[in-house]
């Protein structure tokens, strides 16, 4: 258990209760950062004390990422700023320097090695040595085991290939990795963005436990309940400037949101009730291997069907089956009452099914290409004559999309990869709405998106439903599912376990349905 001891050492024996009075562990003074002449961080001052959870809030593009990248040694701040660790000024020229100063970061895109084992990932770069500089694999595995046990992850095998793990498990590996090297400050960038509720609860427990040990934590999240559940202090950034640092007791939900967006948002889930029309999509005992089993459902025009479930419950797998990526192995799909076969995404698209995928960066966008090229990607056939793409139509389409979806961009020729997360999501949405689909499947439509963009996407969703589109929405955020859906289907272990009407769905019953039937499976996913 040397690890625990080592982790505990730099705590300077500061109990959590006296955190407020303790000197800052890490402090940023008057820090700015300029990229190509654009100041993305403006004279920000910021500090973290030992044993506190300091939440960092702001819309995407507010400067949070830049700030944490300065702290973790990726960027050097502009002249005039200063970083102090334990009161002493330091300068980081590489992530390695930051590591040495006890600052570790768990990134949003988990930076792991898929082909290596859990133990190896945890100790990459600082593995235990036996004699003559050779790695001590047994010691490595033993200490990895100890670290994971410490994080209450007894079910995670240290010899498992990381590539085969769930997001939640990979995140635990990341945290163990950070702790394995005496982290005194742990920066967590949206750690719960891709986690299901049960996993979120486990993660929050882990964070609390770390705080008790005196580790300082910078916690970035868009999810308000977590912030109120965890944070001691909150700092809000907007447009690269510091808006304020407050104790958590001084703020509430509404005031934080208005600090972030500079205005107040009246309604988080602007659900508009629209008339529900005729059945559009019907599934009859549709299965895909053992990942999706015997799903039957009816989706009507104007309806938003929410699918809730833990990660791995078969939600996304069901969407992929309807969309033809993993064609159904049995069962029947009807569209407007007629049976159809969907064996490929092209067929699905041509039948009027659209899918806004879960992983925006990997499945949704071609980041090096322009907004124009991304928006037209799914309907090139329709805007081309004799397979020659009509550039005029295409540009018009892209400009339309920018206007209609409120995409904040320099123009249709901006590269998609340069946009913020919310705007990227709008591009993906625009791509699919441009195909005039009858059925729109949205998988985690607001993951990793800031509050402002989130409500815009929700509003769009309602508008589309109002235009007669049938929408399936998959989400790990229970409030979103409850707030937006007309009907809620809960999946577990590849099966549909219950459906709720909007009126009867409460967080308690839906949450219970998500976890209940598959309690034995939950361990694997959790």
């Amino acid at each position, binding site marked *: 258990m040397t690890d625990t001891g080592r982790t505990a050492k730099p705590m300077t024996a500061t109990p959590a209760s006296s955190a407020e009075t303790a000197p800052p562990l890490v402090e940023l003074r008057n820090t700015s950062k300029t*990229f*190509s*002449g654009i100041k993305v961080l403006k004279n920000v001052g910021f500090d973290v004390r030992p044993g506190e959870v300091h939440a960092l809030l702001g819309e995407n593009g507010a400067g949070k990422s830049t700030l944490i990248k300065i702290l973790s040694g990726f960027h050097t701040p502009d002249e005039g700023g200063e970083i102090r660790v334990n009161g002493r000024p330091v300068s980081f020229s590489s992530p390695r320097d930051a590591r040495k100063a006890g600052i570790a970061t768990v990134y949003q895109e988990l930076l792991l090695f898929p082909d290596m084992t859990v133990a190896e990932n945890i100790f990459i770069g600082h593995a235990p040595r036996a004699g003559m500089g050779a790695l001590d694999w047994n010691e490595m595995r033993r200490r990895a085991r100890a670290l994971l046990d410490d994080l209450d992850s007894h079910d995670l095998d240290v010899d498992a290939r990381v590539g085969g793990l769930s997001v939640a498990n990979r995140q635990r590996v990341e945290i163990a990795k950070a702790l394995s090297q005496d982290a005194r400050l742990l920066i967590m960038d949206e750690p719960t963005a891709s986690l299901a509720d049960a996993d979120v609860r486990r993660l929050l427990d882990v964070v609390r436990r770390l705080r008790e040990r005196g580790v300082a934590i910078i916690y970035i999240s868009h999810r308000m309940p977590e912030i109120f559940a965890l944070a001691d202090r909150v700092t809000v950034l907007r447009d690269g400037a510091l808006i304020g640092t407050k104790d958590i007791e001084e703020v509430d939900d509404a005031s934080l949101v208005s600090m972030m967006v500079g205005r107040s948002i009246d309604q988080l889930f602007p659900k508009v009730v629209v008339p529900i029309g005729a059945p559009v999509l019907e599934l009859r005992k549709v299965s895909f291997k053992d990942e999706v089993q015997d799903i039957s459902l009816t989706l009507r025009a104007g309806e938003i069907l929410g699918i809730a479930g833990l990660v791995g419950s078969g939600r996304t797998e069901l969407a992929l089956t309807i*969309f033809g*990526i993993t064609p159904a192995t049995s069962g029947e799909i009807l569209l407007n009452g007629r049976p159809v076969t969907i064996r*490929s*995404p*092209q067929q*699905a*698209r*041509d039948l009027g099914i659209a*899918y806004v*995928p879960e992983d925006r960066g*990997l*499945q*949704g*966008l*071609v*980041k*090096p*290409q*322009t907004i124009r*090229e991304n928006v*037209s*990607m*799914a309907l*090139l*056939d329709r805007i*081309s004559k004799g*397979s*020659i*793409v009509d550039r005029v139509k295409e540009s018009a389409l892209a400009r339309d999309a920018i206007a209609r979806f409120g995409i904040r961009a*320099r*123009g*249709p*020729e*901006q*590269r998609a990869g340069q946009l913020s997360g919310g705007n990227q999501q709008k591009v993906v949405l625009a*791509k699919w709405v441009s195909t005039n689909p009858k059925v729109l499947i949205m998988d985690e439509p607001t993951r990793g998106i800031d509050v402002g963009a989130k409500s815009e996407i929700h509003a769009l969703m309602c508008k589309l439903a109002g235009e007669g589109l049938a929408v399936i929405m998959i989400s790990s955020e229970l409030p979103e599912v409850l707030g937006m859906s007309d009907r809620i289907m809960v999946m577990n272990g590849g099966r549909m376990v219950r459906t709720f009407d909007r009126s009867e769905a409460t967080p308690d019953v839906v949450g219970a349905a998500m976890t209940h039937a598959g309690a034995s499976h939950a361990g694997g996913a959790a």
Partner: protein
Amino acid sequence: MTLSLRSFMRHEAVLGILLVLVLFVLAQQSDKFFTTANILNQGRLMTEIGLIALPMTFVIITGGIDLSVGSILGLCAILLGVFWQNLGLPLPAAMALAVCVGALAGLVNGLIITRFKVPPLIATLATLALYRGLAEGISQARSVRGYPEWFFVLGQGEVLGVPTQLWILIVFAIGAAAILGLTTFGRATYAVGANETAARFSGINVDRTKLLIYTASGLVSGIAAVIFVSRVSTTRSDMGTGVELDVITAVVLGGTSIFGGRGTIIGTVIGLILVQALKNGLALSGVKGDGTIVVIGVVLIFAILASNLFSRNGDG
């Protein structure tokens, strides 16, 4: 618009300037360099490499590579002779059939890559050996000669004062540029190279796109084989050995990213001309062949280096 276009054309611009510079220097070195006869003749000599470089641009834009093109060229050349001489087919039929075999060979590459998910480098490394082996086995080391006079029009004749095959290259280059730049297929090619998964999720038939591109690569190698045979009036199984490296050099020099997603036909054509001008101009200036190879190697590294530096400055 302008920003993206600028970054897109940047490499081509750097290369264009380099080409002008090279042409200028070479013209100073030898008065024979900038003559119509020499330029047209160089066009004749670079046609086979040039033709194969066109589909190779597509292949590399999708993030793949095709190392088997030289072997396909050899196989098709041999089959042209075998079909005509040993099977007694009329020559036009033999030509068509040889090109078809080229397409078939490319299709097999495509199937191995798409169906069995073998990385293109490995798949075509294997077929590089396989196709060359077939060429050797089928030919039993025998050359086929004595083609009729009309056949040589393709490789040695002229149309309107310009070598016949240069017309073919020009037509193919314009066609390829149009397909890549203007059509849905070209879009699909870029999308597949830049993000294959997103392309698949956007309803682009990724496998079909790749299959078509590898088939085209084989088909064009077959056409190049026919032209090659016509130019040198004989058929040998070692034809086209090492062509793949020349082709890849031209394409990469032309700014096509080896990681996929980026590249243009214009760039490839400039790359081709640059390599050919260097080979020819240096020879005319009295530099020996081995010196020319060294220069081409240096230019390749330098060109990519220069465009890297420029683009880094531009992007900040």
